């Protein structure tokens, strides 16, 4: 939100802004407009500084390197990379417009500390929410911060790294929406909800190559974390503006490989600057199988569903895809029937999916909905920028 204050005396807008130095270094990550004029007796000072747009992403899959993040930063353009010249075990990713920080960096207890106290990383007692709130607020206000680094390899808290306020800040981790103060700073929030069966299938694929792991150890690990997960992480989904729910497919009976997935995009109604996508007719209930005379699909095919629902006593719209894409024309066919996608040109969703066809989920609803959410966030960001431009133009006329 742009803050404009009008004073009646000549007054220079003073904001402690170390980030202002970044402006002169050539980083065009921040724009700072200072309009100072005095006409007659009335002096008006307008400070329209662009506040960082903050997006929260709740996910259990580790930080920064996740597929969702890479798709998101790709929509904005440019590849996101770890900060150059810094700690090689940093979890932060920086691209031209976006900085992604990992909330694990706000652990108050390192691995040894957690072991001693007998708490998991999921437990709020292992995280410093005061510091998280302070720093996210500072970045949002345009002040650079020294953020701690949690080293996942050593399990220790490393010396801090400097984070300069970007245009878009994404906070990713286990607790972006846990603390109400942090929640209020978020312009948009997403929760990635992987069902237990799919989680199990994915972890098997990830860990079976690892010496020491067995089916039992993977199962035990998931089971042991479940109580804390259900108590602290899962409740955050009621606060999310968008939830991507990943479930086992209903098209193949007894599928336990997790290769074909049923993915639901649950979008909250009434969120500012966010218009949910829909199929054919907004507000109605649609069941759609695109495969037929115009489009031939291979087994098990694709099934779509769209409709209004209630989710934790919120009004939501749900678009659901079950199945997988095998060919380019299936993807473009589906895209052409979805509405409110906030694409800039016809086929943009397909193009983004193709760009990252090697990413996991590129042939099913996870990739599709992650890409679409990325486009919605881009749209949200552009709306905010347009609003600010209009506000400062209007104020300048005064």
């Amino acid at each position, binding site marked *: 939100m742009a803050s404009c204050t009008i004073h009646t005396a000549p007054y220079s807008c003073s904001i402690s802004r170390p980030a202002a130095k970044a402006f002169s270094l050539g980083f065009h990550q921040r724009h700072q407009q200072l309009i100072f004029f005095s006409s007659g007796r009335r002096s008006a000072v307008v400070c329209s500084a662009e506040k960082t747009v903050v997006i929260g992403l709740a996910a259990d*899959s*580790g930080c920064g*390197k996740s597929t969702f993040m890479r798709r998101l930063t790709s929509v904005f353009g440019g*590849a996101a990379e770890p900060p150059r010249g810094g700690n090689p075990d940093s979890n932060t990713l920086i691209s031209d417009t976006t900085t992604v920080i990992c909330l694990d960096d706000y652990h108050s207890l390192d*691995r040894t500390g*957690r*072991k001693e*106290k*007998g*708490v*998991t*990383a*999921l437990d709020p007692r292992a995280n410093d929410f005061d510091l998280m709130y302070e720093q996210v607020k500072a970045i949002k206000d345009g002040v650079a911060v020294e953020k701690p680094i949690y080293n*996942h*390899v050593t*399990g220790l808290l490393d010396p801090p790294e400097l984070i300069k306020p970007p245009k878009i800040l994404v906070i990713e981790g286990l607790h972006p929406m846990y603390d109400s103060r942090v929640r209020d700073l978020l312009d948009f929030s997403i929760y990635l909800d992987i069902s237990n069966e799919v989680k199990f299938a994915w*972890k098997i694929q*990830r*860990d*079976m*190559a*690892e*010496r*020491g*792991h067995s089916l039992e*150890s993977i199962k*035990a*690990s998931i*089971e*042991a*974390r479940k*109580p*804390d997960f259900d108590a602290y992480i899962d409740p955050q989904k009621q606060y999310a503006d968008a939830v991507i729910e990943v479930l086992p497919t209903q098209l193949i009976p007894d599928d336990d490989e997790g290769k074909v997935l049923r993915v639901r995009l649950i979008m909250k109604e009434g969120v500012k600057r966010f218009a949910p996508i829909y199929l054919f007719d907004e507000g109605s209930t649609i069941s759609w199988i695109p495969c037929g005379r115009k489009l031939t699909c291979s087994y098990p095919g694709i099934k779509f569903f769209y409709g209004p629902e209630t989710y934790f006593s919120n009004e939501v719209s749900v678009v659901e895809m079950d199945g997988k894409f095998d060919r380019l024309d299936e993807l473009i066919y589906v895209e052409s029937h979805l509405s409110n996608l906030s694409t800039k040109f016809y086929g943009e969703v397909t193009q983004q999916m193709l760009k990252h066809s090697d990413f996991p989920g590129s042939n099913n609803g996870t990739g599709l909905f992650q890409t679409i959410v990325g486009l919605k966030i881009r749209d949200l960001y552009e709306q905010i920028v347009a609003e600010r431009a209009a506000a400062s133009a209007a104020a300048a006329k005064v």
Partner: protein
Amino acid sequence: MAATSFPGAVKGLVSAKARLSEPLRGGSRSLLVLYPRRGGMALVASATPLELSEKVAESIKNAEETCAGDAASGECAAAWDEVEELSAAASHARDKLKANSDPLDNYCNDNPETDECRTYDD
């Protein structure tokens, strides 16, 4: 299968990016990457870096011991949480190794405008 180099390869040539893991026991899978090296080709096993792999195995053993005592305790949950954290780190390290294994890819990521790296999308 230990790391081997074909005849003609310079002995002792180890790339900073390639990690040589100890002989892999049956049941663990890893990626075999063919590396162009001066004098020949080197076959390198691209598995999880050794130290991380050992940490994971150790943490699993530790978790099993801790939970044998009291399965519902905080210590048991914390131990398995550590296993999860290390497994995730190992998986990321594997991906990183895979991503870093092609020197041309690395060069082109940093210098996309050079002749070798230009792509033409028609």
